[in-house]
């Protein structure tokens, strides 16, 4: 068991008002699953994603990640888990605009304290694996949207994380480029990676093995087709 949620609740305080975002989630994700989280806006999918990604902690309930209870960890302990165990891919790519592709991919290794020469080698390898071996010294503004998302993917992969979390990874891409990115996710899954995808597009969700639908902070539906279509 890679991930286990038991009665996870998340309540945001907006001034004096308490806004519940998650109202009791029980969820288990095995290693090498390919899961899509779906739901309309306000359903709590981003909150769920943030908690899975250790960017946020639950208000109530327990979240065990790779055998470790993370609900009560400090900011810096969460940062370490994010660094070593989780690879993020965002809708808006979130690359450092002034840094080269190589430096962007190196960044997680910087924070895990890996020496410079090894960092460079690993980052170059990761860029190679997403087909950007010839673009390592380009800055994000010299790259196309698809290429930027590949850099982001390389950055997510470079530390060999336990799970890759992607939040609307094709949201800012045209459908052809989006399909190429989804193809990479498929390959990654086949290589044994665990992937959790947040999307509101049905055809993207169809790429996954298992689909989790949220509504008003609760799991509405959890279908596991067991295999990749």
């Amino acid at each position, binding site marked *: 068991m890679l991930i286990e949620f038991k009665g996870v609740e998340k309540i945001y305080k907006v001034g004096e008002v308490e806004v519940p975002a998650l109202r009791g989630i029980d969820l288990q994700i095995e290693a090498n699953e390919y899961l899509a989280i779906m739901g309309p806006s306000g359903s709590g999918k981003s909150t769920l994603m943030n908690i899975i990604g250790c*960017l946020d902690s639950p208000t109530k309930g327990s979240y065990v990640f790779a055998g470790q209870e993370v609900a009560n960890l400090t900011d810096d302990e969460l940062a*370490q888990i*994010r*660094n070593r165990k989780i690879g993020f891919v965002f809708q808006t790519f979130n690359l*450092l605009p*002034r840094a080269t592709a190589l430096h962007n991919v190196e960044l*997680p290794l*910087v924070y895990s304290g890996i020496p*410079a020469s090894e960092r460079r080698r690993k980052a170059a390898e990761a860029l190679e694996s997403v087909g950007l071996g010839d673009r390592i010294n380009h800055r994000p503004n010299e790259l196309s949207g698809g290429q930027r998302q590949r850099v982001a993917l390389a950055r997510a992969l470079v530390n060999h994380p336990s799970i890759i979390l992607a939040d609307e990874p094709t949201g800012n891409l045209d459908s052809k480029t989006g399909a190429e990115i989804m193809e990479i996710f498929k390959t990654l899954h086949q290589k044994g990676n665990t992937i959790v995808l947040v999307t509101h597009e049905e055809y993207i969700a169809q790429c996954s093995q298992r689909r989790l639908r949220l509504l008003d902070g609760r799991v509405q539906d959890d279908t596991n087709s067991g295999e990749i279509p």
Partner: protein
Amino acid sequence: MNLREIGEGIRMAVGSLRMHKVRAILTTLGIIIGVMTVITIISLIQGLNRAVSKQIAGLGANVFYVQKYPWFAGEEWFEYRNRKNLSIEDAQAIAELCPSVENVAPVLYSGKVIKFKDRSTERVDIRATTPSHQDVSNTTVERGRFFTQTELNHRRQVCIIGQTIVKGLFPDEAPLGDHIRIGGRKFLVVGIQEKKGSMFGQDMDAVAIIPITTFQKLFGTRRSVSIMVEAKPKLFEMAKDEVTSLMRRRRHIPPKEKNDFAINTQDTIMNVYKSLTSIAFLVMIGVSSISLLVGGIGIMNIMLVSVTERTREIGIRKAIGAGRKDILFQFLIEALILSGIGGIIGIGLGGGAGKLVSALTPLKAVIPLWSIILGLGFSSAVGLIFGIWPAAKAAKLNPIVALRYE
């Protein structure tokens, strides 16, 4: 903090400063001015110190002055007016009774106009003394001779004149053997003093030396005599003590009363000089701390802007595993580099200002290494102190909020 964070911090800082070169320079202006002030003033004071110590040493290292008034008396001067004058006899007593004293010369100082035929000088220094003045003050006669003990005893109207007076009164003839008028009285020129140059901006060659007895005969005995005392080698303090107790006896001062005369030494000048430069130092500290404060606030301001501008970047860094400390150090390093650059520019400009003063005036600026270290230290400290708050603000950002920031 470890090396990887420093490396990443420097990389980030340099990148961000490159983006905003003009902003960076403007931000560090306060620090530049502060450090420049420190370096300029220290270099000038150091230069001045050297020049002054050299001139003070020129007064004669082993000489002190017994006088009615202390040097730089200021307000208390009025209290000292009623003191009994010092006399030539006091000088004779010192010479006879103080074993640690090498040489004694009583001197009367005055200012008088000197005339020769139709030419005349401004008021110049008249020094009325005895032949021993030559030894005590290291005066050498270049041509002719000093006046003799006999001339002193007989109150002869003879004089030795300095080079400036020679130039002023005798442009093309030899002055030796001529009669000049000092304060309207006729004097025979018997010697020309060797060139002395200037001290504290005063021309030491605009001087005439005459016998002290002659001076008293012609111009009166109301003035108090200054007694120049040269101590035997290494017996300076001893000589001072002997002279003090002798003078107290001669002036009948009861044991617990204060001296009613002054012993003036080079240290007296040095102390006054030091108190003057310490005022300059205080002004420097004032000016530079204000500009460093302004510079620090500038840095804090620009770092806050920088943190806000890069909220998203901070979010990204945190999402991929940067801890609070990582972000804190990265922004601190940026502040430090910013202020450090200001410090370096300030040191450069301050050094330049010192060089400029050296080139335009006789004052030679000296930039000691410690002032450079001081300048760098101050600017770095300012960067650190004023960078902490913005950096802490960055470090505390919630990654989710930061990532959503547009």
